[in-house]
């Protein structure tokens, strides 16, 4: 697939030389004039198990961003406006396809910039590659300590990592007097890392874990576990879950009447789908969310534009969508400042404090240390940030019975 590999394709001269090669002749767009489009490549799950997350939190934002920029005359590349050309394909939720496609995009197609794929696993595989080719990579949907520990200079993580998220949750529970928790976690990188961070956060907090169980991706029934948790009557339930299991755990808890004072589930609580499926039952449910349209005027503008483009049935989610948009805001600013010199973009991203719709973002290594860990709660149809108080859009309310 990638017959031509140039490890350092940063200079225009190399690009122009590549035009002479027969393979590149197949891409006449490489013969660019000054106003040629900015070619931005990515792969995205449009089929397969990652689709749910990718098509809610990530790809709609890429499309909206390109459309907005182009409507305004194009992306500001150090003062000159150039239209954005998105070069994208379906990665079929397959890591191998991701890696190969990015290798092609960066190695032989030599696109100007790349945008990240969806999910921790795909980013884990593609990030080192992007780093080798020297493409800045602002990943909105990757959550893993190990990605930070790889210390890749071109790689930036926008979402809050397990430690701040779990610290925030535990701090909130502690302040509200919770004494015992029951935990379920998905047995992959996401679940395991969050579970580890949760255990560390709980140690010395005065709260005890009365039961903890892992479950596999694609689980169909959690009621046997939830029933035994119900018998132990914990103050808080913490589900380190993915969207289908978030809904499964919520529905089944409602079915069996397991209604702890604090009911927390992870990915997917911030989705509009959660409200659609749980209806009034969503009230009081806690989860991973860090913004909504009340967070800032620019967040509201983004929310409205998203709903306008994709319809009221496809709102952005209240967690990763915001991070995706923030990443695109940062990239836009970086290109305006540094042009398409990828090293300069990288330096700009790493060395600047960015103003985004979800607040100030700054990076220490790969990690976003500007956004604190947050907890959000469904209240009357909106997913409100309730912790920490500085970021809160509403105050925590007691969870009513499931309805």
């Amino acid at each position: 697939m990638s017959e031509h590999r140039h490890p350092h394709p940063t200079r225009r001269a190399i690009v122009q030389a590549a035009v002479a090669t027969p393979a590149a002749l197949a891409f006449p767009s490489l013969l660019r004039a000054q106003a040629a489009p900015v070619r931005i490549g990515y792969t995205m799950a449009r089929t397969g198990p990652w689709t749910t997350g990718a098509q809610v939190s990530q790809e709609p934002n890429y499309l909206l961003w390109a459309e907005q920029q182009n409507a305004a005359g194009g992306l500001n590349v150090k003062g000159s406006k150039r239209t954005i050309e998105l070069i994208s394909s379906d990665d079929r939720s397959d890591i191998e396809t991701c890696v190969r496609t990015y290798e092609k995009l960066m190695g032989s197609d030599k696109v100007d910039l790349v945008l990240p794929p969806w999910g921790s696993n795909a980013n884990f595989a593609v990030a080192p590659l992007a780093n080798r080719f020297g493409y800045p990579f602002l990943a909105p949907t990757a959550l893993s300590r190990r990605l930070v520990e790889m210390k890749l200079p071109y790689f930036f993580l926008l979402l809050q990592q397990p430690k701040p998220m779990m610290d925030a949750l535990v701090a909130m529970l502690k302040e509200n007097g919770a004494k015992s928790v029951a935990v379920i976690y998905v047995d992959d990188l996401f679940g395991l890392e969050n579970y580890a961070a949760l255990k560390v956060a709980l140690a010395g907090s005065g709260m005890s874990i009365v039961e903890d169980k892992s479950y596999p991706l694609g689980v169909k029934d959690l009621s046997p576990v939830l029933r035994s948790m119900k018998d132990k009557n914990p103050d808080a339930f913490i589900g380190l879950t993915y969207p289908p299991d978030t809904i499964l755990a919520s529905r089944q808890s409602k079915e069996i009447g397991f209604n702890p004072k604090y009911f927390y589930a992870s990915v997917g609580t911030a989705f509009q789908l959660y409200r659609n499926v749980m209806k009034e039952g969503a009230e009081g449910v806690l989860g991973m969310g860090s913004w909504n349209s009340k967070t800032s005027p620019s967040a509201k503008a983004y929310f409205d534009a998203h709903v306008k483009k994709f319809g009221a049935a496809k709102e952005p989610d209240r967690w990763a969508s915001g991070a995706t948009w923030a990443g695109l805001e940062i990239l836009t600013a970086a290109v305006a400042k540094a042009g398409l010199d990828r090293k300069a973009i990288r330096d700009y991203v790493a060395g600047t404090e960015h103003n985004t719709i979800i607040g100030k973002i700054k990076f220490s290594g790969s990690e976003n240390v500007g956004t604190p860990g947050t907890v959000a709660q469904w209240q009357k149809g909106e997913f409100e940030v309730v912790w920490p108080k500085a970021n809160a859009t509403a105050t925590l309310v007691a969870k009513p019975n499931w309805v």
Partner: protein
Amino acid sequence: MSLGSWLELIASGLITGGVYALVALGLNLQYGLMRILNIAHGEFLMVGAFITYTAHVTLGINPLLMVPISFLLLMGLGLVVHRLVFRRLTRTSPTLDIFEARGLMVSFGLMFLVQNFAQTLWGGDLRGYDFMADPVAIGGAQFSANKILLLVLALTISAALIVVLNKTLYGKGVRALMQSPTGAQLMGIDTERLHPLMFGVGLGLSGVAGCLLSMTYTISPSMGEPYTVTALIVITLGGFGSMAGALAGGLALGVIEAIGMHFTNPSLKSLLSYGIFIGVLLWRPNGLFVRK
């Protein structure tokens, strides 16, 4: 553990098992009767789920009404698929073994086709709706109304199918075909008609299972595959071609999984199911419920 908890646990296993049974019965009809190991079987369950979802959300049709409708629609689809694919395959395959191998390959292709078709039509989003989700208390245990409905319907439909196969002339023909295809043909049983019909009924059952599942779980185009695998385990448990075996096997697997998950860990569920699968293949290859 209290009696109520046990009751809840076993009942939740039976509910899961009811769906397993329904899917397995359909697959068993196809495999037991025609040796079509339809890997795409679960995909038609997904189609049934999406049809119900769409009918309910956009047209406001009651999902219960969609039970017979999805059966008929999927049965129709089954007749078409059989006509386009498997009828031709039957004619061009020199032996039954070659037919089986080719059928397996073709159904793999069907799986991708149907999955991607659904993806194009409905998109990859996770979907779901709220229907009869209110909890009902029965003797100290508590279940959602839609789960109870699911169990009752799954059992009724399975039982009806078994009765039809055992009591009617058509059923007799089908059973005869399962026992000895050549013998049955010699006795004047019309395979040209029975095969597509039973293939259709198989898919219809899958559609019903999907319809019922859409009431209780979230649905997505990739939801079908795990059910195909489970159905294979179930018909191995129950014995290829044995309908009562598939019903009992489905329910048993559901209960075993529920109890296993309660006492160990949901992460070990696959280990449990596949362990049983391998065990049965090793020690009772004809199925747990087949007397030979």
